[in-house]
């Protein structure tokens, strides 16, 4: 009897606890979420880990979900191309007649360029390599401008790398997962880019505000910038490489200068992520390099420039006249690791 009584009391206790928990569940959930939100604001790094794992999981799904939409878009573009195929063919034939002449000119210019470089003892400043990634998700919404790309740590990416495409500067990497990364676009309100105007050579900071145009900050009062002038990255601060086209000045009203980015955000499909070369002498380092980069010949530095540590030659110049000073054979045969950072200086 007593046992039955204790069972009843326990059951009653469980029912009461359950009822209280149910009534308080909203408050408990809200408290839990509040803690997460506070953690997200105060310790963004801890949340970034969760976010990157989530990105890695969701990226294949987003690629899959985007496929039918892409097929639809490609069908419509193929249809457009089919309509104008005869005109396009005619235009290409005409252009094709000029190709051999252009090719000869290009070769001549290339050789001339090489000769002049060797005369000047010019050292190439190509210190970046590129990783191409596909934009699998556009996370644009009224409060931020971000995109997701299908390359991550396994492709050698790291936060802060700059993204460009054939039109110009796209943004920089914010968070990097194993297979995917989150990209902060230059139009995001948190984006700041040090820039220089092409003709007037004015330095400024380009700021995004979640709209399609960018604003120039810290221009001098008597600025000479003009509408239609190109804006390039200045390379100040060392985050963005210099001379990447960013946009064109669209309007000037008092001290408010608006810049229209070159990138067509509506058709952003691929980006190239720019990373510093690890070792210029190592041919494996430039695994996804541009074709022109492989054409670039590394020239020897004049001996006077580096008297203490002579720089080893990557590809010795065949003309003996161009060499300012002949170097010992041993140096050429065994390049020291000091050679790589030298190129970056």
């Amino acid at each position, binding site marked *: 009897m007593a046992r039955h009584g204790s069972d009843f009391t326990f059951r009653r206790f469980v029912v009461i606890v359950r009822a209280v928990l149910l009534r308080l*569940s*909203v408050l408990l*959930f*809200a408290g839990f*979420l*509040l*803690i*997460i*939100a506070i*953690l*997200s*604001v105060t310790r963004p790094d801890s*949340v970034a880990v*969760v*976010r990157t794992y*989530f*990105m890695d999981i*969701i990226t294949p*799904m*987003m*690629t899959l*979900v*985007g496929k039918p*939409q*892409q097929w*639809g*878009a*490609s069908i419509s573009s193929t249809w457009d191309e089919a309509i104008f195929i005869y005109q396009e063919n005619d235009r290409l034939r005409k252009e094709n007649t000029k190709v051999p002449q252009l090719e000869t000119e290009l070769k001549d210019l290339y050789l001339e360029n090489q000769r002049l470089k060797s005369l000047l003892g010019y050292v190439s400043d190509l210190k970046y390599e590129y990783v191409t990634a*596909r*934009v*699998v*998700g*556009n*996370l*644009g*919404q*009224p*409060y*931020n401008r*971000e*995109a*997701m790309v299908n390359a991550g740590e396994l492709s050698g990416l790291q936060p802060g790398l700059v993204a460009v495409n054939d039109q110009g500067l796209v943004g920089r990497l*914010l968070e990097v997962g194993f297979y995917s990364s*989150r990209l902060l676009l230059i139009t995001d*309100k*948190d984006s700041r880019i040090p820039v220089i105007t092409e003709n007037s050579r004015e330095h400024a900071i380009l700021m995004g505000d*979640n*709209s399609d145009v960018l604003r120039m900050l810290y221009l001098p009062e008597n600025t000479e910038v003009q509408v239609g002038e190109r804006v390039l990255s200045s390379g100040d601060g060392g985050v963005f490489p210099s001379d990447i086209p960013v946009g064109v000045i669209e309007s000037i009203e008092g001290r408010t200068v608006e810049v229209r980015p070159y990138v067509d*955000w*509506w*058709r*952003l*499909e691929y980006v190239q992520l720019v990373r510093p070369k690890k070792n210029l002498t190592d041919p494996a380092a430039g695994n996804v390099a541009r074709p022109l980069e492989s054409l670039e010949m590394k020239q020897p530095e004049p001996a006077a420039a580096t008297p203490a540590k002579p720089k080893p030659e990557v590809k010795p110049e065949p003309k003996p006249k161009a060499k300012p000073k002949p170097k010992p054979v041993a140096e050429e045969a065994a390049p020291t690791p000091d050679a790589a950072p030298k190129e970056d200086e």
Partner: protein
Amino acid sequence: MARAVSRRRKAKARHRHLPFILTCIFVVLPTANSGMNFLHDFAPYFIVIATFYWALMGPTFLPKHLVILLGLIYDLLHGTVLGMHSLLLLLTWTIVHSQRDYIIQQGFVIIWAIFMLVLSVFMALVLSLSAAYTKTFPSIDAITWYQWALTVFLYPPIHLLYFYLQKYLTKI
């Protein structure tokens, strides 16, 4: 007989999460890169539609914990403060659910108008919290208006879709 009942229960349990899965697809679909990226800017707030409908018409199909999960997925996907959308969705769910008996008796137009009101408050809160986080003044631009209008105009078809889904789920 017992086997048939058990099979039916299992099927019901399997289909129970269909509203959540469908809403997840609605959340992910507009963010996928389609080559027509202008659509992303005007992506409607499907999560608010789903939360409002299921809190009103069938709270057991999209309970509180799934609403929270939905909000977390949204925050992780869009890079907003983790927990912000979950918290606001939970608030929406609780308020709508508490007024369920009154709202459910109204006609569709009144329900739609109430949804408009709920969405406006929800978006105003999101805007204010985002502005507080970024330490800026909250401003409503054209895209926010488009997003609001699109969500409002998409409510009737989504309501209908969820209605038929609910009908199917209650039948099995």
